[in-house]
């Protein structure tokens, strides 16, 4: 009996340690395939680095052209041939990026519980999906935008449906093929369907070779953009 008790205490301790592990870095190869309303297509490939503590997402892009893109909590930078080619304001984008949401354990509800724009109004279960309805939090916002539906499958974010204020579907996103890396669940495929003038346009983002909490490559995780 005493051994069993000790064993239980040990297992609880191990569990506590596992939960206490903080995910603070993620690196992944990525590809984004997209068809656009003007008839063109886009393929972007490269490697993405995100460090939660440094508050930077660095995209090292190899295709279509060699480019480096850096997103901080307030600006977006683009470097071509080692020179700054673009700088623009980018407020709140890093906070709601999939990398920050995943590392902050907020991906399951897409961070809607933290942004104050939407409030949870309904939760229902159907088949393998738990569907939550998020309505704009104020009457003024309701005039501007519609509800958002979020579905979870096995407690993982599965789908998002965005509506306009007339209850028409604007866009859907599906998060599939989750990988578990060092205890972090991350979708290796995101499929976005945009509805424009009755036609569907797709954007498929794929992540491969996901690395969590790497201790090397500090220079790129904490890319010093101020020198450019």
């Amino acid at each position, binding site marked *: 009996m005493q051994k069993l008790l000790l064993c239980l205490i040990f297992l609880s301790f191990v569990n506590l340690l596992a939960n206490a592990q903080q995910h603070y870095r993620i690196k992944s190869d990525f590809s984004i395939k997209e068809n656009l309303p003007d008839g063109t297509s*886009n393929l*972007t490939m490269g490697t993405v680095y995100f460090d939660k503590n440094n508050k930077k997402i660095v995209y090292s892009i190899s295709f279509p052209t060699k480019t480096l893109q850096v997103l901080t909590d307030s600006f977006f930078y683009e470097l071509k041939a080692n020179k700054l080619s673009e700088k623009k304001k980018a407020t709140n*984008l890093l906070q709601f990026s999939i990398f920050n949401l995943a590392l902050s354990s907020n991906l399951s509800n897409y961070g809607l519980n933290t942004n104050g724009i939407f409030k949870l109004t309904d939760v229902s279960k*159907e088949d393998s*999906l738990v569907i939550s309805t998020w309505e704009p939090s104020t009457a003024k916002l309701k005039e501007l935008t519609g509800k958002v*539906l979020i579905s979870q499958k096995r407690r993982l974010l599965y789908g998002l449906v965005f509506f306009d204020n007339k209850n028409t579907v604007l866009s859907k996103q599906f998060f599939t093929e989750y990988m578990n890396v060092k205890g972090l669940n991350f979708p290796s495929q995101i*499929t976005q369907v945009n509805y*424009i003038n009755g036609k569907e346009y*797709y954007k498929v983002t794929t992540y491969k070779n996901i690395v969590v909490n790497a201790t090397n490559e500090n220079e790129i995780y904490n890319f010093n953009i101020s020198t450019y």
Partner: protein
Amino acid sequence: MKNNVLMLTILSVLFAFNVNAGNASLFQFDQNKVNAEMNQLSKVENYVSTHNGVTLEQLKAENNDIVSGVNLTESTSTLSALTEGALGIPSFIWGCVLGWIGILITYLVTQDSEETKKALYGCLIGWVGGFLLYIIFVVLIFGGSFFWASAN
């Protein structure tokens, strides 16, 4: 009385089921259709994966067949992914679908003049598209009426 209660219960359950069924069906998408649409891009992706460091400019310069069947842009998609404005939806679409309200949402959420400009372009294109559809509609209706009037 018992029958009424039973009927009401069945109706309530059916109503609740229908409401939920509507929501669940929204979370379905045709993966085969997506794969078919992305087929050519996937071929380019596989080629680039196996030819380390190759750029679109190089592929075009050597007239590589792999890019001949697809109209690829030189711009990178992460830029739009990162700055695609409110709720992960491209600003262009906000403007195109919701008009001036879409522009306002983009402005309020992103606070970025470039994104607001994209929403404005989307709005203008949406209006132009709508106007063209209206013209086509009018031509079809009045043209058809004129044809039938002449025929009679």
